[in-house]
């Protein structure tokens, strides 16, 4: 019988600094074909424990997977001591991920992401940007606390070339320099900059802190976007990631099994 908790060792290929507290770990992975955008992996470190981390990018041909890791907990603290060539234990992928082929294909896709919420949507943005996946149009609003917190600057520069992209920080400070063209204000304040003329064609993905997702979803509702066209990705404490430990349960829903991606019709009813 298969032990669902057994992690497998994989080699870290490279580590890149994204911000002071967020690093990108590229890791060898043999099950990239199973991955869907927005899914997560349990990173497992002997002596320390396990943590659910979103797959921020992956490459099927080259056989790697990438994580954006923020230094905030027991497991992630230890990760910052590792270097390329070291071993990382993984199990997964878990969760549903975004329903790209069923819902977003050939639609006008709007993605709103806040802070490390950019992690879970990055692989999907990349896939669209690199034309692996087709949409009618993609527009992005990416929000960060301040300019020091901006993630994926190289990617953003790239995405910006072909897509309407609003990069915003909560508050601009004097002397803030960035080549990307930054706006100021919360993501909700920039919804007007999107092309919302044909709402029937629209699908809106919102990923970020709970409070940001709540107000962003309400903002799109105000603009006449129906609930069923809005998608959220949840983050909860998880121990097992396979529907046993109970930590991520909200009402009758297990975020690890039925989530982390929920349609807003369901998501707005998931009350802690």
């Amino acid at each position, binding site marked *: 019988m298969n032990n669902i908790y057994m992690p497998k060792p994989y080699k870290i290929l490279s580590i890149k600094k994204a911000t002071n507290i967020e690093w990108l770990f590229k890791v060898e992975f043999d099950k990239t074909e199973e991955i869907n955008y927005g899914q997560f992996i349990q990173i497992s470190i002997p*002596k320390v424990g396990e943590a659910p981390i979103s797959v921020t990018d992956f490459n099927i041909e080259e056989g790697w997977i990438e994580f954006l890791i923020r230094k905030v907990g027991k497991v992630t603290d230890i990760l910052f001591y590792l270097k390329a060539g070291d071993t990382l234990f993984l199990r997964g992928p878990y969760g549903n991920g975004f329903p790209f082929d069923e819902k977003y294909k050939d639609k006008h896709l709007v993605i709103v992401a806040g802070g490390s919420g950019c992690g879970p949507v990055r692989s999907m943005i990349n896939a669209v940007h690199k034309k692996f996946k087709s949409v009618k149009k993609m527009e992005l609003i990416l929000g960060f606390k301040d300019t020091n917190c901006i993630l994926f600057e190289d990617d953003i520069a790239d995405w910006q070339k072909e897509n309407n992209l609003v990069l915003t920080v909560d508050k601009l400070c004097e002397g803030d320099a960035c080549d990307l063209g930054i706006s100021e204000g919360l993501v909700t304040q920039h919804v007007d900059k999107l092309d919302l003329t044909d709402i029937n064609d629209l699908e809106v993905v919102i990923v970020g802190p709970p409070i940001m997702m709540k107000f962003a979803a309400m903002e799109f509702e105000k603009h006449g976007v129906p609930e069923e066209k809005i998608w959220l990705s949840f983050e*909860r*404490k998880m121990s097992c990631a396979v529907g046993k430990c109970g930590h991520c349960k909200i009402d009758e829903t297990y975020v690890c099994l039925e989530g982390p991606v929920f349609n807003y019709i369901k998501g707005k009813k998931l009350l802690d």
Partner: protein
Amino acid sequence: MNLKISMNNISFNESLKKLGKKYKIYGPKLFPFAGRTSDTDLVRYAEVSTIEEMVFDKKSDFSPKEILLPQNETMFYFTEKEYKEPDIEEKDTLIFLKSCDLHSVKRFDEIYLKNKFSDIYYAQRREKIKFVVVGCKTGFDSCFCVSMGTNIPENYSMGINIRDSEVELEILDEELKDIFNGEEKKFKIDTVTENKIELNIPNEINLEDVIDLKLWREYDKRCVACGKCNFVCPTCTCTTTQDIFYTENENTGERKRVWASCHVDGFTDMAGGHEFRKKHGDRMRFKTMHKIGDFKKRFGYHMCTGCGRCDDACPEHISFSNCIKKLIAELGGENE
């Protein structure tokens, strides 16, 4: 075909002894002066070898769930390079329990054998377990098994009534038929037909209808978030994984799984500090809804078995059945 016989205690114990070669036999056992207050005893599940050792005239303080899912279980032994699974217990297991607790096994199976993935640790133990249901006539003051539909036993290998000088046995399992021999007798396994506490729980309770009710606020202060109710509950299945390492060699250690409680601080804490359900009353609501609302929405039957152990264990004398009553009243149900 089930076989109904009667045996005296001496020959019953002899049969248990024979069975002990192949089985670890568990029953509720009295631990004198081990209760939670001075001069009180503790009844919990432990290995037993005679019928006299088993205590059924008192409610066991803890349920048999610690046999199904140990309070503290090693999932892996690890070195820096390798995870290794622990060896499997070779003996089979026989558990003596009452109908309410037998029903809790179905809840455990639902989570640990089903719910999309099967858990190997639970599955390996579970397939080696047989259950002996012990007749129960009246229950105890805090019980409400009849309201929860757990008073009639299902899926057991053997049923017994413990009488003054004899044991009545209804044997369904072929292997046990060979071990227990006695005079044929007509009888029925005792079941509770009425509890002092009666609840009429609605079939469907929606979270959005109850989340803002004022009744939860009483528990903000009353509940001290000790988690005792979860630990004594025969159906609380939540766990947390914990890694430990050995002081003699810090590069080796174990990944353990320990019981977790949705009432205790930290249950929802994420790395970075975000926490859900800070108020103790909201935790009470979360547990209540799981026991009589959302588990049923997902699996089709209530999680709570009505054993009442949470009431018995609460240091603040919070009554779960009373909480359910108040909730039903708020929702316009029939209870007072």
